[in-house]
């Protein structure tokens, strides 16, 4: 609708407001207001003294970092006038602006006014401090978590996929596996935790088993339903063209089931995060979950926030990665379903 209206010359353009209506100008104004918001964070942190008797080491550093970011944003805003690539920042500008305001408010009520009780609510610079001073341990945690998650997830996804195809394809496999799946599948993987740590030789292998179990169930069920939903006409076509059983499974059933399989993979990934953190908190002596638990034991709440933030980045990053993978593999669905 707006495109129709845009084609009609509007009186405002004649009255000099046209300057504000070009996308370059709008992008410049948006970018500069974001830069201003971050300058406010920097100024507020630097020039408003911390509450007496607090010892935040990185207050100055945090102010400089915010100031540098503000400067970079201002430069990007000006670059956007000439280079279209920088105008893409316009889309995230409202979010960056809101984030700046949030940080400013957080800084004010913690380090400056001390309205929120310590140590539960540390100021932003305390989290920066943790990331800088304790990066070695955090990096180790990320690496350990990623290793555990990747091993368990791939194992579970692969086994779930194969099982799902087997149940969907073979009557015999369905007869034997389906009841087991119905009985054991709905049990939360964490219920196995005490048993797993007792049965498996190491807490690492026990956790892999739990993560694989949590991933495997949804992948199995959705792969199975995907294979079961394949139109029989697809098989008829392939059979009249001389397809073998192997071809029917690999080239007809599996590709047709892939959209379902991905739903299972997404559900499995969500489940695996939950089990990973629980396993690390209760048994494994490494990883971000363990770090969280350890930080809580020392009442190091800034460390907890840092670990939570990193965990959020890790999880959302992996989900994004899986989306990218799906978009690549199932690009044929574009135009068939709402993408």
């Amino acid at each position: 609708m707006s495109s129709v209206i845009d084609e009609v010359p509007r009186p405002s353009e004649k009255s000099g407001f046209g300057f504000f209506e070009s996308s370059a100008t709008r992008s410049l104004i948006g970018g500069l207001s974001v830069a201003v918001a971050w300058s406010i964070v920097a100024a507020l942190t630097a020039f408003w003294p911390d509450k007496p008797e607090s010892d935040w080491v990185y207050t100055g550093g945090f102010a400089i970092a915010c100031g540098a970011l503000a400067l970079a944003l201002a430069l990007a805003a000006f670059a956007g006038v000439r280079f279209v690539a920088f105008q893409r920042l316009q889309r995230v500008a409202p979010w960056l602006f809101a984030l700046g305001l949030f940080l400013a408010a957080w800084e004010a009520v913690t380090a400056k006014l001390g309205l929120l009780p310590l140590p539960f609510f540390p100021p932003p610079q305390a989290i920066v401090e943790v990331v800088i001073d304790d990066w070695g341990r955090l990096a180790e945690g990320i690496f350990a978590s990623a290793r555990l998650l990747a091993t368990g997830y791939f194992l579970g996804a692969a086994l779930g996929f194969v099982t799902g195809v087997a149940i969907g394809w073979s009557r015999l496999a369905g007869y034997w596996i389906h009841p087991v799946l119905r009985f054991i599948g709905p049990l939360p993987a964490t219920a196995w935790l005490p048993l797993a740590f007792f049965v498996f030789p190491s807490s690492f292998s026990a956790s892999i088993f739990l993560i694989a179990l949590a991933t495997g169930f949804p992948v199995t069920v959705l792969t199975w339903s995907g294979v079961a939903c394949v139109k029989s006409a697809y098989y008829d076509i392939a059979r009249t063209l001389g397809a073998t059983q192997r071809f029917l499974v690999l080239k007809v059933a599996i590709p047709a089931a892939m959209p379902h399989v991905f739903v299972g993979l997404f559900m499995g990934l969500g489940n695996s995060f939950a089990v990973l953190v629980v396993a690390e908190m209760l048994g494994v002596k490494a990883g971000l979950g363990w770090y969280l638990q350890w930080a809580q034991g020392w009442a190091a709440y800034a460390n907890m926030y840092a670990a939570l933030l990193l965990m959020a980045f890790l999880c959302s990053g992996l989900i994004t990665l899986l989306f990218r993978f799906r978009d690549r593999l199932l690009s044929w669905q574009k135009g068939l379903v709402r993408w």
Partner: protein
Amino acid sequence: MVAAMAGDHSVRGSTLTLREVSHRFNFEGQPLPVLDRISLQVGRGEFVAILGPSGCGKSTLLRLVAGLDTPTAGALLTEGREIEAPDPSRVVVFQDPTLYPWRTVWSNVALGLEARGLLRTHRERIEDALRLVGLTGFANAYPHQLSGGMAQRAALARALVNDPTLLILDEPLGQLDSLTRIAMQTELVSLWQRSSFTALLVTHDVEEALLLAGRVIVLSDRPARIKAEVVNSQPYPRHRGNPHFVKLRREVFEHLGLEDAW
């Protein structure tokens, strides 16, 4: 098709014999007879149409010929051998094009060659088949990007690439709009003339049957029995307004019990 390209224009379609073929379905515990002692002899390179009211069992008959199902009684033979399983020499084009949505037009057409492990040696046939149905520019398109007529043409190419000796057409033009339908009827005839396969067409469109086939088999209501056989030996291209054509059409409608409609 390959034979035609090699310049060999001799008839190479296969024969088809139906001997007292009967078929029953199990419908809610009751036997439901669909086909009743159908006997038919189709010669090499012949174009035979099977015409009948909808739901009379025409498509069931084609599934038996394709080898997708086995009859309750009687026998189906091609080249003197009994039909027991699907074979790429007898390819079906269904009413619904049923292209695989995850494959491009090119790889949909490649399906039969790939299934038989001939893709590497006979790759060029795919281009030929696409050219034959006029889809050369659409090799990389996905099925959802095609119109109904183009999709059905792609399905035809997918069948022809296997160089069938018997092409089984299950109302392949049933879902097309009337203009595309007329154009495709002409194309089907010229494809059949060029490639010299035996063609078995199932349809409920009297004109289509008479335009395409040399012989029209009229089936009764379920359980289907052969009611009549109408031979049309007019040369191609045939014209709907031709007096002889009109006479044959009237004759077929009479066999279908619809003489009052004309």
